[in-house]
C-alpha cells in the first residue's frame, strides 16, 4: 500500500513537471487571443525550454557558486513544494511531512537564493531586482499566511491535506471568511507569480523588471531550469488556490479511477482559472512600484478581515 501511494506521489510530480509548461502556454494563448494576436500554441513553452537546454551557458567572470547553484536549488525546491500540495489526491505521503507554514518557508528559500544570485554578478539591474523582490516579499508573505490561516481555522489544522478534506468532504457551509481570504489569495497569487499589475512577465525594459531583472544574467540550461521552475510556481499557486478554495473533486483515496476523474476536473478548473488570470491582466496596467505597498497592504487587510469574520460569524 505504501508503495502504491508513493507511486501516486510520483505521478503527481510527473504531472507537475509536464503540465506546468502547458498551463503557462495556455495562459499565454488566451492572452494573445484576447488581444487579437496569433500565438504559437500551448506547447511553445516546451519548445523554449528544450531550446534553452541545448544552448551554451555563459557565466560572468565573477560568478560565484551561489550563481551556479541557484537554478538547481530553485528547480529542486519547486518540485519539492509540488509534492506537498495535494492536487490529485489528499492521500499523499509527502503531504503529511509539511504544512502551510513550511510551504511558505520553502518559497522564501527560493526567493532568498534568487535574490542572492541577482546580486552575485554585481550588475545594477540584478541588485535593483533583488531589492524590489525583497520589498515585495516582506509584504506578500504575511498576506499569504494570513489568507491561508483563515482557511486553516475552518479546518482546525495547518495541514493542507486536512484543510482540503474538511472543505471537500465535510459538511458544506457558506463561509464569508473564505470570500475575503480568496480575494487576498488572488492578489498574492498575482504578486508571487510576477504578473500584472505587480510585474510584467513579458517586459524587456530593464529598469521596470522585478523578477526578470534578477535572472537577467542567466543563460542556457540555468535559464531553462529557472523558467521551468517559474512555470511550475504558477501551476503550484494555481493548484494550491484550487485545493484550498475549490477542492471539490480531489479524491480522498488513491483509487485510480477517482484520480483520473479528479485530474480531468482539475484540468477544467485550471483552464477556467487561466482565463480569469488573463482577464485580470488584460484589464489592468502595471502599477507604479511604490503603489505596491498599498496593493499588498489591502491584501493583508482583506485576509485579516476574513479571519475576524470567522470568529464573529462562524
Amino acid at each position: 500500500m505504501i508503495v502504491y501511494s508513493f507511486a501516486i506521489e510520483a505521478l503527481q510530480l510527473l504531472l507537475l513537471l509536464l503540465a506546468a509548461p502547458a498551463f503557462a502556454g495556455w495562459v499565454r494563448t488566451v492572452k494573445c487571443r484576447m488581444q487579437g494576436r496569433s500565438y504559437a500554441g500551448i506547447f511553445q513553452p516546451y519548445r523554449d525550454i528544450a531550446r534553452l537546454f541545448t544552448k551554451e551557458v555563459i557565466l560572468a567572470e565573477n560568478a560565484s557558486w551561489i550563481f551556479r547553484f541557484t537554478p538547481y536549488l530553485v528547480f529542486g525546491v519547486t518540485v519539492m513544494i509540488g509534492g506537498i500540495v495535494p492536487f490529485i489526491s489528499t492521500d499523499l505521503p509527502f503531504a503529511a511531512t509539511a504544512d502551510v507554514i513550511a510551504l511558505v518557508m520553502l518559497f522564501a528559500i527560493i526567493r532568498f537564493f534568487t535574490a542572492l544570485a541577482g546580486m552575485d554578478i554585481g550588475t545594477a539591474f540584478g541588485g535593483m531586482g533583488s531589492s524590489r523582490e525583497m520589498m515585495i516579499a516582506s509584504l506578500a508573505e504575511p498576506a499569504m499566511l494570513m489568507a491561508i490561516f483563515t482557511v486553516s481555522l475552518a479546518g482546525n489544522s495547518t495541514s493542507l491535506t486536512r484543510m482540503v478534506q474538511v472543505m471537500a468532504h465535510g459538511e458544506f457551509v457558506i463561509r464569508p471568511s473564505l470570500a475575503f481570504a480568496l480575494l487576498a489569495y488572488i492578489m498574492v497569487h498575482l504578486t508571487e507569480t510576477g504578473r500584472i499589475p505587480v510585474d510584467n512577465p513579458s517586459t524587456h525594459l530593464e529598469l521596470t523588471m522585478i523578477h526578470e531583472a534578477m535572472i537577467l544574467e542567466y543563460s542556457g540550461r540555468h535559464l531553462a531550469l529557472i523558467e521551468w521552475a517559474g512555470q511550475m510556481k504558477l501551476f503550484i499557486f494555481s493548484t494550491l488556490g484550487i485545493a484550498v478554495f475549490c477542492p471539490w473533486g480531489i479524491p480522498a483515496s488513491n483509487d485510480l479511477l477517482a484520480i483520473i476523474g479528479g485530474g480531468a476536473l482539475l484540468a477544467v478548473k485550471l483552464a477556467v482559472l487561466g482565463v480569469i488570470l488573463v482577464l485580470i491582466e488584460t484589464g489592468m496596467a502595471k502599477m507604479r512600484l511604490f503603489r505596491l505597498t498599498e496593493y499588498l497592504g489591502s491584501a493583508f487587510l482583506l485576509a485579516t478581515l476574513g479571519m475576524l469574520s470567522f470568529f464573529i460569524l462562524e
Partner: protein
Amino acid sequence: MSSEGILRTFRNGEAIPVRDVPEIALHAFLQGAVDLTGQGWRIASYFGVPDREGVALWCILAGSQGRLGALRSWVERQLPSITSSCPEAHLFEREIAEQCGLTLEEHPWFKPVRYQRPLRRAHEERGSGAGVQPLPAVGDFYRVEGAEVHEVAVGPVHAGVIEPGHFRFQCHGEVVFHLEIALGYQHRGLEHALAGGPHPATVVQLETVAGDTTIGHATAHAMIMEGLAGTEPPPRGEALRAIALELERLANHCGDLGALAGDVGYLPTMSFCGRIRGDFLNMTAVLCGSRFGRGLLRPGGTYFDCSAGQTADLLKRLEEARRDYSGAVELLWGSPSVMTRFDGAGQVRPEDALALGLVGPAARACGIERDVRRDHPFGFYRISRPPLRTQPGGDVMARAKLRWQESQASLEFIHDRLNSLPEGPVMSACGAAAGERLAVALVEGWRGELCHVAITDAAGRFLRYKVKDPSFHNWSGLAMALRNEQISDFPLCNKSFNLSYCGFDL
C-alpha cells in the same frame, strides 16, 4: 532697448544673399544671441563653418510673426560660452566645439556631443588629438557623491529592439537624482557627406536622417532647394506634401500611444495601436509605394501624383483607421489603472521647457504654444493648417493626450485635403541653386521643429548643410523629466518623448 537691429530677418524657406548678413564682432554676436533669446526669439540652429583660418559662426533665430533671423560672426580658436545665460545654446555650443575644433571658455559641461571627428581636414594642423576618433560614452559622467548614492548604467545595448544610446543614472534607492545621456553610436558623417552638394544622393541621404521622419526631413530639404532655385511647387504638390507629413505624424503618434500602453503593461491598446500604425504607414505606401514615404518628395514638388482611385482608397482607409484608432485610445482613457500611471509621471515644468528650448509635442504638452505650422507656415500650411493644440501639466499624461488630440486634428486635416485636392501638376522644374546664398527651412515634423540650413559657395554648391532634428533640443527635456522620478518609470518617460537617436547622431 531691442537688439533686433543687428538681425537680418527673412521668412521660412526663403534664401537670402550671404552678404546681406553682415559679419559682426564676436562680442556683439554673443551678446545679441543672449539678448534676443530673452526677447521671444529662440535658437533654431547655431553652427560653425570652417572659414579662412578660423570658423564662421552662424546663429539662426526663430521669432514671432513668421520672422527668422540670422547672425554671423567669425572666431579663430576660442570663444566664451553663453550657455550659463542661455541654456538652450548648451548642446549647440558643444557641437560647434566638436565639429570645428574650437574651445569654449567657461562652458558648464564641456564634453563631446557625438564623439565624432571634426568636420574639416585642417584639424590636423591644429594638433589637438588629430585623427583619433573618440569612442562614444567614454569619459567622465556627472557623479553624485555619497555612500547611499549608486550609479546605474543602461545601454548602449538594450533588452528591447531599439536604437543604441547610453544612459547614466545617479540614484538614491529607486529615486533618480540625475540622468546623463550619451549618444553618438549611430554617427554616420552625414553633414560631412552633404558638403559640396547637392549630389544625386543628397535627397536620399536626407530622407534617412531619421527613418521615422522621412517626410519631415525630405520636406525641409525640398524647401531649401526650392528656395535656392527660386521655384515654387505647384499647389497640388504642396497639398500632397502636407498630407504625407500629417500621415507620418499620425503613424508615429499612434505607434507611440500603443508603446506607452505597452510600457505600463496595458496590453489591449498596445496590440491594437501597433496594428493601426501599420494601417497609416500603408496609406503612405498607397501614395508612393514606400511605407515610410521614401521617394515621395523631390525638390519642385512630389514625385508621385494621387489619382482619383487612390484618393478614394485613401479616404476609405482613413475612415477605417480613424474608427479603430478611436476605439483603441478610448480603451486607454477608460482604464483607471493606466491613468494613475500616466498622471504626474515625468513632469517638465513650463519654465524649464522654455529655458531648454523644447519643441514639438514635448513643448506643447507643457502648455507652450509652439508649432512651426502656425508660427512659420510653410508649403500648404500657409493656406490652411490643423489647429494648434496644447495640454497643461508637462507629464506623461499631457504628452499622451496631446498625441491623441494632434492625431484627431491630423485626421480631420487629411480628410479635408483629400476631398479638395487642387488640380494641376504635382511637380515644377527646380533649377540650379543660386550661389552665395543662405537658405533656412523649418518644418514641424511629428517630433517637433526640424531645421535645415544651407550656405552655398559662388558655384551654388553647399559650403555647409546643417541638419537639426527636434531630438537635439528635446533630449535635455527627457533628462529634466527624470529628476526625482522613480527609475522604474524611465522607460515610460522615454517613450512619452520618443526621441530619435540617429536623428541626433547624424
